[in-house]
């Protein structure tokens, strides 16, 4: 996975609360068999009209935000379904960091699996960053967001930070515990034999 260290880019404000995964990438695009190519359908229903024409008012259609790599949003970002298509679509569009007061649990976890950084900042900080004209820097090693003379620190769990900084593959990390897993399975077979699954009739 591509590591995330420091990102400097334009931040697009979409300051609604409860931006759900259906809004980020609607169901008709979940029929894909691959992870790529979803960027053009990111926020489909609010980005295009029924005929597929761009809606000029939508933030990502405005010239200054077309190349945004940071998204500013309201609380509870990513609520709704577990679809990893949501971070895939954001990443494919070019977004690498999302700054919001809070995130839904599954979306939050899905971000880290894809090298995206969700940063929790108070709404006031998000609102002032939305007023910044030029680029914003998200500095993961220093755990700081800077731009337009503003600076905000954020917290991140050390394990998550390492995964992003080093671009680690979670499955590979877990494979270091294969012996533990095997030992657990042996023990469970004895302690809870009813858990063995019979084959479907």
């Amino acid at each position, binding site marked *: 996975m591509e590591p995330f260290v420091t990102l400097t880019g334009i931040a697009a404000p979409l300051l609604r609360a409860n931006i759900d995964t259906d809004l980020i990438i609607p169901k008709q695009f979940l029929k894909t068999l691959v992870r790529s190519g979803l960027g053009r359908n990111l926020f489909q229903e609010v980005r295009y009209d029924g005929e597929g024409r761009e809606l000029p008012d939508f933030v990502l259609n405005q010239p200054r935000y077309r190349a945004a790599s940071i998204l500013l949003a309201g*609380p509870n970002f990513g609520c709704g379904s577990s679809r990893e298509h949501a971070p895939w679509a954001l990443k494919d569009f070019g977004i690498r960091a999302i700054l919001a007061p809070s995130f839904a649990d599954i979306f939050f976890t899905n971000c880290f699996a894809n090298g995206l950084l969700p940063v929790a900042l108070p709404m006031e900080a998000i609102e002032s960053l939305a007023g910044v004209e030029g680029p914003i820097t998200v500095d993961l090693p220093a755990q700081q967001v800077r731009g337009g003379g503003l600076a905000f620190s954020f917290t991140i769990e050390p394990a998550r930070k390492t995964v992003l900084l080093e671009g680690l593959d979670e499955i590979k990390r877990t494979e270091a515990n294969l012996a533990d*897993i095997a030992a657990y399975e042996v023990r469970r077979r004895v302690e809870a034999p009813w858990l063995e699954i019979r084959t479907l009739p």
Partner: protein
Amino acid sequence: MTPRTLFDKIWDEHLVATRSDGTSLLYIDRHLVHEVTSPQAFEGLREAGRPLRRPNSILSVADHNVPTAEREQGIEDETCRLQVEALESNVKDYGVPYLPLLDDRQGIVHVVGPEQGFTLPGTTIVCGDSHTSTHGAFGALAFGIGTSEVEHVLATQTLPQRKSRNLQVRFEGTLPRGLGAKDMALALIGRIGTAGGTGHVIEFTGSAVRALSMEGRMTLCNLSIEGGARSGLVASDETTFAYLLGRPLAPRGALWEAALTHWRTLVTDPEAAFDSEVTLDVASLAPQVTWGTSPQWVTDITGRVPDPDAAASTDDRLAMLRALEYMDLRPGTPIEAIGVQAVFIGSCTNGRIEDLREAAAVARGRKAAPGVRVLVVPGSGLVKRQAEAEGLDRIFLEAGFEWRQPGCSMCLGMNDDRLAEGVRCASTSNRNFEGRQGRGSRTHLVSPGMAAAAAVTGHFTDVRCLMGV
């Protein structure tokens, strides 16, 4: 020993290792797989040349994309068909148990798992689907995961986890006639909000939860995710055991007895502390109807569309204004005065036999109101068969409702069951997000009885009035 909650106990039993970075590796007993969130996971496995660790821990079925009419003729939509075919070839390559489309046992993954006895108390269950929380009704720790995590479980049978906090939601009192678990859940989400349970596992307790059937408990746990909680739990009891006894994949004989002995210990210790608690009295509840584009925007059937000017903050006010515009509703309108053009009865929230019985009791001897299209979609082939054995299909058909084949259907409209722009729908599903049931569609979440009541009157109606309560 320190007193523990049910969640603590299941967690402890599944802890494989605590890693140096502070995360825990949790063992996953059961994995449900469907066609939408699994193709990239199998692809990842294949690319890395990794084997699948425990094929038998998986139950797979196609549900999201499947047609609910004339299925025998195959899937017409090419992208849907390709996704179902991808699942079929993946499960074949990796030797994963699969319920084919024309099998009687096919259905929505969260209806099928419990039906087959795949879902058991005290287990950890995951699925690439947020409504996996449904299985918590059996006292199982069940949660939705992303596709990368699906791949992780396929490869290692574990997941790195951080322990959630414990939230106790206590429902006390006797639920009035005409109300059910859907009303309890919506009222709760109205109270705590869609982010209220974030970072928590909810344990549902109290006399009103004990009184619920397994179907009702599944509805309640299903909606935990709409309150922001990844999992909901109801401790197993005699109701649970009676439901499971004799199910195809449930343990039998001596193993059943051994399991029972253990399951009876899987309850929260009396002294155990929760991180937070919420109590709701159900005796004073009225049937719930959502009016906005988030499940938290809900009110009583006897209520009115709220006024954004009364919102707590400017942000809330703006969000409400946007929702009312999308829903084409004016503040102060009585909920009962809102007309519907469509009704959807089904989904993993309310597509089980008891839900269909509830809807049929209202539809019996009545007709769909003119201009209202009503879709009834059983949650599984077995639910469909049972409903037909009880004659519910005839009641629906005589009322002018459509009787369909099982699947997710109009809950999210990945197949052809979609609402046209601007159409207002009374739906028994779980999400009223913008565009959820079709671009520009307007969804109101209600119980099966309330959905049937809207179907026969053409507008939201207090189901209690049609039941002579």
